[in-house]
């Protein structure tokens, strides 16, 4: 299962959980699972987070694959000027 690291605001919304294991093959499955496990997290996941999978940041990419041993971080989405 992928290891998902939550920090800061997301950690608070997930009731203090900083590392959790999630069964997910891609980003969309991950977001669904996180939203279902932590309902308070759900609206924030849809409002501007990117997903870093093994160090590479994916933004708005539902079908980016997540490996069974992947380390996943939720990172605020970056826009820029």
């Amino acid at each position, binding site marked *: 299962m992928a290891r998902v690291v939550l920090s*800061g605001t997301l950690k608070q919304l997930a009731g203090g959980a900083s590392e959790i294991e999630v069964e997910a093959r891609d980003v969309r499955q991950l977001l669904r699972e996180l939203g279902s496990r932590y309902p308070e997290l759900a609206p924030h996941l849809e409002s501007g987070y990117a997903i870093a999978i093994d160090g590479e940041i994916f933004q708005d990419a539902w079908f980016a694959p997540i490996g069974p041993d992947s380390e996943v971080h939720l990172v605020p989405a970056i826009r*820029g000027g």
Partner: protein
Amino acid sequence: MNDVTMKGLSERLFKVVGTRPLRPDGVDKVTGRAKFGADIHVPNMLIGKVLRSPHAHARIKSIDTSKARALPGVKAVITSADLADLPSEFIPAGEMMVNYRDMTRNVMAREKALYEGHAVAAVAAVSEAVAAEALKLIAVEYEVLPHVLDVAQAMEPGAPLLHDNMYTIGVEPKPAKPSNVAKRVEFALGDVAAGFAKADVVVEREFTTKPVHQGYIEPHACLASVSEDGQAELWCTTQGHFIVRSFCAKLLGMELAKLRVTASEIGGGFGGKTVVYLEPLALLLSRKSGHPVKMVMSRTEVFRATGPTSGARVWVKIGATRDGRITAAEALLKYEAGAFQGSPVQPGCMCAFAPYDLDNVKVVGFDVVVNRPKVAAYRAPGGPIAEFAVEQVIDELAKRLHLDPVELRLKNAAKEGTKAAYGPKFGPIGMVQTLEAARAHPHYRAPLKANQGRGVASGFWFNIGGETCAALNLGEDGTVTLVAGTPDIGGSRASLAMMAAEELGIAVDKVRPIIGDTSALGYNFLTGGSRVTFSSGMAVIEAARDVIRQLCERAAKIWEVAPDEVIWEDGHARSGKLALSLAEIAETAGKTGGPIVGNAAINAQGAGPSLATHIVDVEVDPETGKVTILRYTAIQDAGKAVHPSYVEGQMQGGAVQGIGWALNEEYIYDKDGRLENPGFLDYRIPVCSDVPMIDTVIVEVPNPRHPYGVRGVGETPIVPPMAAIANAVENATGIRFTALPMSPPRVLEAIDAARASKI
């Protein structure tokens, strides 16, 4: 994921990429042919003008437009009553998350005017004079409220409250009362208390920065025409005509396909043209009047009602061992958002310590509303403010440790595999390479005279990808029209044409790049985030490969061989001894299957961060406090510089904007919260005579996720300058300046105070 990534980047020999052809838009721009936002005129066009609040904070009790509507020549008058109210929710608009409740209130004040210059009503009339006269006839009854402009004051209990429905997100327990603090964010890694306990030296300081405007030379301008059947055209100066379409359609209840938006040439944006101000108003006035409506902001309006970036207060604490290894770093960032939430404090927190490989980090940020225009993005939004503070503390730490500041940075530099404080590990990045280039540069060892000082600072920006489309249309003569959907601000038409030519194997002057309107291509996210050469480049390369596939198929048909027996090499289809050039295949395309068009529609991922190190020499006049920039060298990782002149131009432009931010630029308000310097005479951005030639060094650490190794370069160059200059001024005077701008009165006051303390 896209499939255009190529392996063996370092082995690829480029023919076009890396050269310096003339830019395709150059002649039009130097001869005055280029059509900017205000350059379009159409028959029966009206002129639209906006009535703006004279108060920094006031409840709008009533608006009477009857006299204005009765004025001969006035064709339409609008207020917020003409715009639908929208719920407060962050919903996707392309790649952006947007709160349309705030947006509709920002384009036209509803219950309250929240800053001086906030739009309150607008008119469309047969001439500018009639429109101006009509504005005078609109009677607005205000109840003036106390205002707050400074982030620290806005956070105090009892501060004037901008929004009575704003409850801070990200704090526990959830607040029982509303406040001006929209959000608290936190990023942490390791244990900072344990890290500081291991430190031999700890430096801790507080810094302040002022709001500064993006300072684009071209004011906001647009022309809208809505027909009786609801179809609409909009011409405007913008960094993203697709997002303008999304925003306007939502605000005005239009279908996307009925609104065609064309991006004009753009006279600068720097993040400030990623939002809408006039565009929905012009569409609404046109819909109401039945005429095309043109609107152009004055410079005063630009200052009073658009941008700027945040003013901020930043506290930084860094500890290190005697040998220069940083053991812990902590920061608190408080950023002004303007009248509506959404400051760049989050990326500021993420950038703060990103150039460094640290085990123990904690960064907390607050997004705070104040009675100024809502902030807009400004190059590397949030990053320059954070690094102004962090890079000065790093400099002071080096002094306390008797280490060279570049050596201290090298000892702690982030590299491939470093875990960022905000979570993920970095891929290949160029922090070490820019520092080594700085150390090796003759500038770093050049002698200095009395009252002169040298400063160094580094900076980081993430860079982004995103939704992008491109099309390549082959003409029957073998020339290629390249259609991109990202407005060209920094020379991207040139770099995109070069990548198309590189891939197709033809001369770059055979490719004519244009920016298509919103009906010409699928959705394109805006020009911002240093994404265009990366993302549109990726799309162009993919479209070129689509063209090549079709060219090879046509050649195979002509030669009556299997398609897999044909390869594309050096601008020719080849099969054994047979060869056909691109132009030869294009000439007969009508007979071999029809026109050849290459398309790409991607969501580009894998943008690699860009790091920079700047060196600056200053001279401080002890009698006047004036800081003169003597020499400036900007060093940056570009991944692969497609057109080196435009990479250098981005680096130079960022440095110059940073010089203005460091030395001159600030908003001056009177006691009622009214801006007193809304013009370039009193809000002084640098001009050519203020700066030396900015020397540049391009470092190339290829980004493995781009076919040519490209990284974005547009934003990072504005991150280091303020800290580099502050470090240089400290080196020259012995005085650490923790507040911007370091303008002559402030510098002189500090010099005088230092002299007085020695007496």
